[in-house]
């Protein structure tokens, strides 16, 4: 396995929301790396904190939420220490985001070319308009948007087109990382497939890293190099996509993968039904947050929270099944490297 360069390092990141019912620990001391040029899929159900994570990476958490701890190190610098100007430069030029609903993230009174030119000029003020337009044109063609669409307004474009414009906005500034937060969720299946192809092509051509945040696990299998699984604000498992799907280690990952419908006949004909529902994060379960629903739960799981540990090459799991502890009575499962 070739050594990957780390583009972004997230260390012990925590995000808390203050609500009427108390503090919600939406992201709790999550750590992982994003490598250069990789497609990392971040999956989980609603409320697991994946979208919060995506926004936190760009420090776009608004009150009543806030980042309450941790570091985000990008190219050696901790962006948590950036001031407002540095953040503005960071957002757009280094990291860019695509949202679920492109209609609300595009300015309805700006045409496509105006969008792209504005993005360029905001971050590279010295660029002349014609130069910006030319860059926009090249990019747009690469994304499969016809030239004549450059003059359209967002409402004149289809959902898939709008998403591509969003991707274009991210690329035009040569961002190093594009965060796609449920970017395909509102799209039709064929459009989604085409966008996924496009994202892969962009990564291949430009070397851009992609963080694909989605609850669509099949999409992640289709698209990503590595997969990170989140549950109730914790990162419970992360590793390369094939080993994770072939041999999921964390009980939640196992259950999740077995509960996903598979369109292929004679594959997964019996869907696994996971007991219970995702927990309420104002009163999260003690110890390991998954223990109330876990078929492998041990007494220790309720008492102590396991750490996210690399237990085999490139694979990190946060589960007592694979870790030692003095109070643990059961055997620890060994995983071959």
């Amino acid at each position, binding site marked *: 396995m070739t050594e990957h360069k780390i583009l972004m390092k997230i260390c012990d990141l925590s995000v808390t929301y203050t609500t009427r019912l108390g503090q919600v620990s939406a992201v709790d001391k999550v750590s992982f790396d994003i490598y250069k040029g990789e497609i990392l899929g971040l999956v989980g159900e*609603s409320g697991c904190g994946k979208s919060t994570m995506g926004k936190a990476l760009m420090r776009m958490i608004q009150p009543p939420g806030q980042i309450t701890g941790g570091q985000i190190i990008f190219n050696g610098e901790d962006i948590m220490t950036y001031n407002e100007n540095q953040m503005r430069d960071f957002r757009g030029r280094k990291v860019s985001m695509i949202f679920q609903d492109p209609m609300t993230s595009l300015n309805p009174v700006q045409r496509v070319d105006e969008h792209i030119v504005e993005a360029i000029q905001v971050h590279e003020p010295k660029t002349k308009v014609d130069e910006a337009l030319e860059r926009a044109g090249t990019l747009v063609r690469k994304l499969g948007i016809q030239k004549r669409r450059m003059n359209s307004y967002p409402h004149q474009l289809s959902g898939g087109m709008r998403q591509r414009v969003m991707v274009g906005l991210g690329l035009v500034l040569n961002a190093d990382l594009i965060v796609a937060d449920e970017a395909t969720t509102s799209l039709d299946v064929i459009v989604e497939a085409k966008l996924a192809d496009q994202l892969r092509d962009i990564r291949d051509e430009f070397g851009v890293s992609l963080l694909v945040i989605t609850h669509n696990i099949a999409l992640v*299998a*289709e698209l990503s190099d590595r997969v990170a699984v989140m549950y109730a604000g914790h990162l419970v498992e992360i590793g390369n996509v094939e080993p994770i799907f072939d041999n999921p280690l964390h009980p939640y990952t196992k259950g999740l993968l077995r*509960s996903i*419908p*598979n369109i292929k006949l004679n594959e997964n004909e019996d869907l696994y039904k996971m007991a219970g529902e995702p927990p309420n994060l104002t009163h999260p379960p003690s110890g390991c947050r998954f223990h109330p629903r876990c078929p492998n739960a041990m007494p220790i799981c309720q008492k102590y929270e396991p750490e996210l540990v690399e237990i085999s090459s490139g694979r990190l799991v946060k589960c007592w099944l694979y870790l030692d502890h003095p109070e643990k009575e059961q055997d620890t499962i060994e995983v071959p490297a």
Partner: protein
Amino acid sequence: MKDNGHKNSENQNEYLVEIKDLRKWFPVPTTFIGQIFNQEREYVRAVDGVSFNIRRGEVLGLAGESGSGKTTIGRVSIGLEEKTEGEVHFDGIDLSKLPSEDLRKLRRRMQVIFQDPLASLNPRMSLGDAIRQGLEIHYPETADQHRDIVIEIMEKVGLTPARFYYNKFPHQISGGQRQRVVIARALVTNPDLVLADEPIAMADVSVRALLLDLMVKIKDELNLTYLFITHDLATAKYICDRIAILYLGKIVEMGDLREVYGHPLHPYTNALLAAVPVPDPHERRKEPMPKGEIPNPIHPPSGCRFHPRCPYAKDICSEEEPILRELRPGHVVACHFAEMFLDKKLS
């Protein structure tokens, strides 16, 4: 549960629902200027000539992307929307000829499970009350038994302890539980047909399997027939007996689900099946996707609606609209060149 008699009698039709040449066109609002210049009226042709039947006890899936017309067909089938043309028969009854009061009473036998459970529940009505409505409306004479029936059905759908949830309100429970309430509400009148409009699309991934399982179990127990509308072909595999693939207001292929999935005969079906991501990184899609996008339903393409995007299109495809033909037993397809796909398995 009450009144099962009519379901088992011999003089029923084989088909619970019969749809013939259904068209539903929505008029596009005209502008003032347009009216001055006597512009021709334009219509969104949401459903443009659809025919199918639903057998008692089966689950028929209507699958398609946006603009396919699947939701509209569902709504017209149970009389929530009026047809523009065609025939809609429920258990032999022509819905368009029914006076509105009779149609209202007939609703007891046709119920709906909507996509968004939070939006489809009255925020000011307790769960028990909401489920009870069907009984109050259609069986007012047995009012003293209503509460017990509701408790029973709440337990059946897994809302236990039922007495605890009876007085709760929609915002106090989770999404998965809400969908159970919606299901319970639909079942309480002992219907024949249940229209399920993307019933699990908004539920959490880990809860969907539970809900699907619930729906299947209940269908068997209560002798229900489902019209299952979905854009998620993978989910459809687990509940639908037969499936109809819709494109831009027309059925392009229909048949037994495992038939259609195993031997797709229409290029669109094939593309659709290939587009659905498989949760297995070793089975990544290799096929390219059709070019272009779904056209505007106000001006559908001539001939076969899929022809502008179809990799196999020939001249005839833009001139003549293909009709549904049975190429394999119980398996119909609307494509001029479907035969060429008969022997090769495209997927």
